[in-house]
């Protein structure tokens, strides 16, 4: 079966306002080109899920007013310092925060992947992460006496949005060792993906590729986007655009500066939309 190929703006329009949207961390494969398209279409009320953390992509979406809820183990720009728009939004109580810890996000997605209602996880008891998560419960280990353990409800994103080096016309998408992106696709209702290149043939015909390939079964739409992760890089591909990222962090310290960044690189970037 052939995949649905979309333009980048068609892809963004398939991610509805209010969606629970799962995103990978900056060190995996992030679709910044799709994030810019979401900002251009003025997406609203998104509930971001970091798998397990978020970075530049989330900071930009928050700054653009696209986000109501952030559920993640961290929002980090790593060596670039604190995420400026996220920090401002939290301090101003503009977004609802659902702090988590990395393995809780992975485990709750695994519950969704298996179609089970909840999954137990060690740790967390006595933390304020747990204290602030009304959706998490401490339950009994049914196989032992006096062994409290945290139950996490299955986490089923409406949409997983990922990027990848290559896909094919059947919607098979190679993510290699970045297998959390495979988990995201398994757990979410729909997955949209941008790829650097849609190659000829079928990725599943090569067993070495197949081991790291998400089957087209999970993929609702695919867009070919050369340098789709820019200004982030992709492991094994191109490096992050450090100068651009530093400029973003400088500008995004203020509302006005962020607006200037939006005007220059997002609202005006109509060339991306036309491709």
């Amino acid at each position: 079966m052939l995949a649905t190929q979309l333009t980048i703006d068609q892809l963004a329009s398939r991610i509805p306002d209010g969606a629970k949207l799962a995103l990978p961390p900056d060190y995996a494969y992030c679709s910044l080109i799709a994030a810019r398209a979401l900002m251009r279409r003025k997406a609203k009320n998104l509930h971001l899920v970091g798998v397990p953390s978020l970075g530049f992509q989330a900071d930009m979406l928050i700054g653009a007013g696209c986000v109501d809820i952030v559920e993640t183990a961290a929002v980090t720009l790593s060596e670039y310092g604190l995420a400026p728009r996220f920090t401002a939004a939290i301090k101003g109580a503009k977004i609802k925060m659902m702090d988590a810890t990395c393995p809780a996000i992975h485990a709750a997605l695994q519950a969704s992947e298996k179609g089970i209602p909840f999954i137990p996880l060690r740790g967390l008891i006595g933390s304020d992460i747990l204290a602030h998560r009304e959706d998490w419960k401490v339950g009994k280990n049914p196989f032992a006496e006096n062994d409290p353990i945290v139950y996490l409800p299955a986490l089923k994103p409406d949409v997983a949005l990922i990027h990848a080096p290559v896909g094919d016309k059947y919607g098979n998408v190679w993510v290699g060792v970045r297998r959390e992106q495979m988990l995201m696709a398994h757990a979410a209702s729909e997955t949209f993906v941008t790829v650097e290149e849609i190659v000829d043939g079928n990725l599943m015909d090569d067993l070495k590729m197949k081991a790291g390939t998400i089957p087209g079964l999970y993929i609702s739409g695919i867009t070919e986007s050369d340098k789709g992760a820019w200004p982030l890089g992709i492991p094994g591909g191109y490096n992050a655009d450090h100068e651009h990222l530093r400029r973003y962090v400088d500008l995004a310290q203020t509302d006005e500066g962020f607006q200037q960044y939006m005007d220059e690189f997002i609202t005006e970037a109509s060339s991306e939309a036309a491709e």
Partner: protein
Amino acid sequence: MKAVVPEEILINAIAANLDGLKHVAVGASSPIPGAAALLARSRSQGRMRVSILGSEDNNFFSDGGKEIFDVAGQGRMDAFFLSGAQIDGKANVNLVSVGEYQQPKARFPGSFGSGYLYFVVPRVILFRLEHTPRTLVEEVDFISAPGFSDANVYRPGGPHKLITDRCLFDVDKKRKCFRLESIHPGHSVDEIHEQTGFKFDLPEGEIPETSTPNTDILSIIRGEVASEISEIYPAFAARVFGVNSTV
């Protein structure tokens, strides 16, 4: 040989707590723990594995972001490092915020894996390279991970040491508090009392000085460790060791 720098004393002191372990993992933004783990591995004669988040050369995981936590949950990880915006006298770690949680005065990235790893990794080494009353507090504003748990909570892991830029603390698991173990060269116990927001125990007798690495250890640190750590932390390696990365 050029004079020993404070970073080298910290690397040496941390590595001394890793010898004999099978698997040491290092999280993000941790150049000194990373260097300490590589030093311990170098003298382990091939018996220690080190995994460093953010490294391509020293990261052997192949099953996605969950694998490092699954490995820890099964007891296949012996040591890990945690820092915190605040650490308190009960070894609670705060990586989230200062002030009211819903509208904080300061917000940090978040808890990452701490809310899990602190419970399951036997030797968690806390490190905080700003030792002041602002960071080492009486009580944290948000508990990302508690230092100690009630007896019925599954807790094979927990705090092993706390190392700062001024001293090394041991952990008294029975009394659930820190005990000063040694003071780094050039620092004093009065200064440590003044700069620590929580109460801590003192050792019996004279307080030792944190040992300085000998010339053999220094040559490993400045040689293979410096070269390997520059792959992940080029700015750190250039500043501390004068190593210029070829990356």
